[in-house]
């Protein structure tokens, strides 16, 4: 059931992972926050993994997961689309993780072995901080700035954590689920 990549991580860090899944063939390890830097370094340096690329780094706000009111006047019939038999689906998706509001997702790719792995790290709203990976992958710099900008998750160890897509005077973090989609913050006049 467990794929070899997930197994490798679990063997080296038996306490680090809270769960793992292989939904639609995307190998995923759900990690405890304290182990992130250690596991990331292992992923990069271990000869069997050699994750040379940090392809993507993003976050999800699980605040309203499954609780969204249907926007339509008529309630949906709720008929979900069944997966075809061609797609492997032995390992179901465990759903949003624990009680933590945010989850930060890291997508790694290995140039040598041509495999991918996703790390998901739940982050509590009260303690929205996560170790920075800028010391391992230079590309983490801007990606972490974007997560800070959009979700308000801080990355201690980041050399210059500031907003990237929004402007400095912007209030709030727009991709949080409690930020209304139609809220406007016009920037009037010169900034400085």
């Amino acid at each position, binding site marked *: 059931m467990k794929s070899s990549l997930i197994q490798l991580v679990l063997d080296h860090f038996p306490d680090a992972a809270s769960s793992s899944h292989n939904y*639609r063939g995307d190998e*995923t390890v759900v990690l405890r926050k304290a182990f992130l830097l250690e596991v990331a370094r292992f992923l990069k340096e271990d000869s069997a993994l050699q994750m040379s690329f940090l392809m993507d780094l993003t976050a999800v706000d699980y605040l309203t997961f499954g609780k969204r009111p249907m926007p339509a006047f008529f309630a*949906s019939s709720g008929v*979900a689309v069944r997966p075809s038999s061609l797609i492997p689906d032995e390992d179901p*998706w465990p759903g949003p993780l624990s009680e933590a509001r945010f989850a930060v997702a890291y997508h790694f790719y290995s*140039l040598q072995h041509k495999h991918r792995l996703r790390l998901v790290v739940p982050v509590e709203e009260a303690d929205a901080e996560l170790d920075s990976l800028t010391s391992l992958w230079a590309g983490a710099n801007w990606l972490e700035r974007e997560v800070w900008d959009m979700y308000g998750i801080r990355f201690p160890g980041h050399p210059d954590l500031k907003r990237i897509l929004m402007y400095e005077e912007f209030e709030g973090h727009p991709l949080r689920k409690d930020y209304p*989609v139609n809220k406007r913050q016009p920037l009037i006049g010169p900034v400085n």
Partner: protein
Amino acid sequence: MATELEAKTDKTAQSAAELETRDMMLNIGPAHPAMHGIVRIVAKLDGEQIENTEVEIGYLHRGFEKMAEIVDYNGVIPYADRLNYVSPLINNMGYCMTVEKLIGIEVPERCHYVRVILSEISRISDHLTCIGASAMELGAFTVFLYMIKAREYLWELVEQVTGARLTVTYCRVGGVKADLPDDFAAPCAKAFEETRKVIDESHGLLTRNRIFVDRMSGTGVISAEDAISYGITGPFLRSTGVDYDVRKDCPYAVYDRLDFEVPVGTTGDNMDRYLVRMEEMEQSMLIVEACLRDMPAGPVQVNPESGRPIPAAEMVDLAKVGKIYQISGGSAVTGPTLEGSGRAQHSSIAADEKRAFLPPKEDAYGNIEGLMNHFKLVMHGHGVQPPKGEVYFPVEGANGELGFYVVSDGAGCAYRVRVRPPCFAIMSALSILLEGDMIADMIPTFGSVNMIGGELDR
């Protein structure tokens, strides 16, 4: 006398030591003719040399990811067009394949081929724009005009298929909007002939041109290690000698059956990036030609044996006044600008899944089940409802790995849609690309980044 002279030289040396040198701050952008889109670069200069730069982005942020959370799954596709607006069909394909992976449906083989053909045509037009624009900024205006002419031929092809030139909105979750027009190979061959001519001419004008080569080679150099560490992919990474291409290394659609080469460079400078892009255009044309040769035969759009051809607009008029008997047995003919397709096309371009793809036009206009099926999919809050889950799916965009990460909570609109924009990684490395180069080198280096504001800022 001698002492006087000594004293004088001493004085000159002293004043040289005291000569004040100051770094100059130069602000370029956000709106500047050489910035492709709106981006601001604040450069610290020592004479003409760039000491360091600060790159500021976000001027084109339109909240794509936020909007994707409030519209239904197919409603994201027009927004996806506007990510990389120079090659929108690749974004369409990437997004739709991600949702298809989430749902777990497979599209028919011909549909894969259609998508591959169109995304390769988009890749060529993207590279033409990139090379043409950066050549123009180095003074080669002719090349720009030639390449835009070639792009025009390709966009005419795109227009024949999708009905639009730029904002194509062609793919659908579970298929494409409509099949290729009959006899698509002929105009395609004609357009490629013209494109090849333009590429040859541009080679003649640029590749051995002393001015062009002097400006391009040895500038904007990045090592393979740095490029990987920054997460750079696509032609930019391949110019450093790393042959990573999503189409080869993690093949999707039908790329594993196609025979093509991945050109790589050696030094990772602007010249290599130019050469890699030039070669990739040729490879893309070979892919399209192979696809047109190999793809399973499509339906005959209008077959007098199987049914009378009725334009879909007439069909809907007849159906509105209840003359169903007049349209039964007919086959719908749709133009490229109209949503949906007739039954003859349907089986070859759409997945066999009623809960994801619109029914054929004959059914939507001709019987109540088809009409209900249609409305169940297009009404707000109904539509495609994938199961709960999260998936990541990468495709090879014109600038590198274009990945979509979609999280679903089982509702009619996505819970989270994240795009991994390929030029975001390249832009994050722009500072080290420019460092140590002359201020004039900023223009070719920035041109070869091929920054697309829509994709970078989303």
